């Protein structure tokens, strides 16, 4: 199988089954290291399922079975030798609903580096927390109340806290599963701006139902339908001149 060396993640003929149901059907796609890749498609098309295969989140579902191959920098993430905890630090995830730990803002960010042994000295940890919060665009808003509970923040701030938490363990890829669907337009704009700033430092894959958002934040877009990858290409092409009829019908609001 051909491996594209510029790809951060290469998925080859990946299928996912939940028991007898096939949720993903032989999907092959590369995730660029310097770009934002958006997954779009109607509910139930498999885009979130596929996203979750990229850091083995589906392992937690007892009936889920994954076939095919997913390479992270050429390394098979489903190989028996792969340390899943380590994998999830390298491939971080941000979820639809902000889910900060019921701990202080500081602890939310410091938790990962501490358990991964990335920092032990208090000063190192402080620096990591500050850097992560800065990169997540949250530092100025929370620097004077780091001991407040993370759950006391607004929804948008909580989501940026979750991004800071993902960043804190120095990941290579960040997966975002509808990160703005519970946020208002201003908080959404802040997350989008953040995605723009994080691009280049991390490979980013985002699942979104908001097509305008996919168009705004991503350089590449993949359209999923009924568990298959229908079309994959430059975002500007997908939204101005999609090749596939199903893509066109979906993005133009003609999806039956």
């Amino acid at each position, binding site marked *: 199988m051909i491996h594209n060396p510029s790809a951060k993640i290469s998925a080859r003929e990946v299928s996912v089954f939940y028991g007898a149901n096939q949720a993903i059907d032989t999907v092959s796609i590369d995730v660029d290291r310097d770009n934002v890749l958006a997954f779009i498609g109607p509910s139930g098309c498999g885009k979130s399922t596929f996203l979750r295969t990229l850091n083995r989140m589906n392992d937690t579902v007892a009936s889920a079975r994954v076939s095919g191959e997913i390479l992270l920098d050429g390394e098979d993430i489903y190989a028996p030798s792969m340390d899943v905890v380590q994998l999830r630090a390298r491939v971080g995830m941000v979820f639809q609903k902000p889910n900060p730990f019921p701990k202080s803002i500081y602890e939310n960010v410091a938790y990962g580096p501490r358990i991964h042994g990335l920092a032990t000295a208090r000063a190192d940890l402080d620096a990591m927390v500050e850097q992560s919060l800065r990169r997540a665009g949250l530092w100025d808003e929370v620097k004077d109340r780091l001991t407040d509970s993370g759950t006391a923040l607004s929804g948008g701030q909580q989501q940026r806290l979750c991004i800071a938490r993902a960043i804190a363990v120095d990941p290579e890829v960040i997966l975002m599963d509808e990160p703005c669907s519970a946020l208002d337009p201003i908080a959404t704009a802040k997350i989008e701006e953040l995605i723009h700033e994080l691009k280049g430092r991390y490979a980013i894959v985002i699942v979104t139902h908001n097509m305008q958002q996919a168009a705004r934040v991503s350089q590449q877009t993949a359209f999923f339908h009924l568990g298959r990858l229908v079309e994959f290409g430059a975002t500007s092409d997908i939204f101005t*001149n999609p090749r596939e009829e199903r893509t*066109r019908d979906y993005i*133009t*609001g*003609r*999806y*039956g």
Partner: protein
Amino acid sequence: MVDHTVKAFDADIGQLRGMISQMGGLAEDAIGLAMQALARPDPQLAARVRADDKAIDAIEAEVERLAVRIIALRAPMAVDLREVVAALKIAAVVERIGDYAKNIAKRVPMIEGGSEGGGHRIEPLSLLPSMARMASDMVRHALDAFAARDAEAAVRVVESDAALDDFYDSIFRTLVTYMVENPRTISQVAHLLFVAKNLERIGDHATNVAEMVYFAATGTQMADRDRGGPDKDRS
């Protein structure tokens, strides 16, 4: 193409397309009537063509309003986006075509009143109506191509522009020769030169419309074509 899930979106696009056809029809009429006014000559008819141009301008403004509203409220994508953008640009071009027709009508009294010999008609005038038909056909075919989303018909319109340019070149030579031989008619024939030039420009604008139709239908730009010889930019 399947209908939009939101029916009002289809209604909006349909309305936009309807207005473009209506504008195109008015512009075509304006060319035909202006030429009739010129050939007869009929200053009253010419005055009507000039007055009717306001209707074209009004529809253009309405197209603009509706297109902006569709973009703002419906965020059109892909083929819808291309179609709305094309409609916006086509409306502006058709408005210009109307202006050229109006300009032809404006010259009718000057050409007619200028004949010092009294009823003296300029022979080469007889060449202009067939050039006008050619230009007007291009406009109609370009707009028909838009209505049918027909990229191939759009290509044919673009290709037909070369013939119109050739026609213009030959009329230009004929009129210049005529002026040399009949110096008394120079001021009238100069107006005819402008009429011919206006028709040639109408063809160029029809070509622009066709190119937008092609883009709206296919999502790609029509390959750049060589649309004339070294005489192309002479005015």
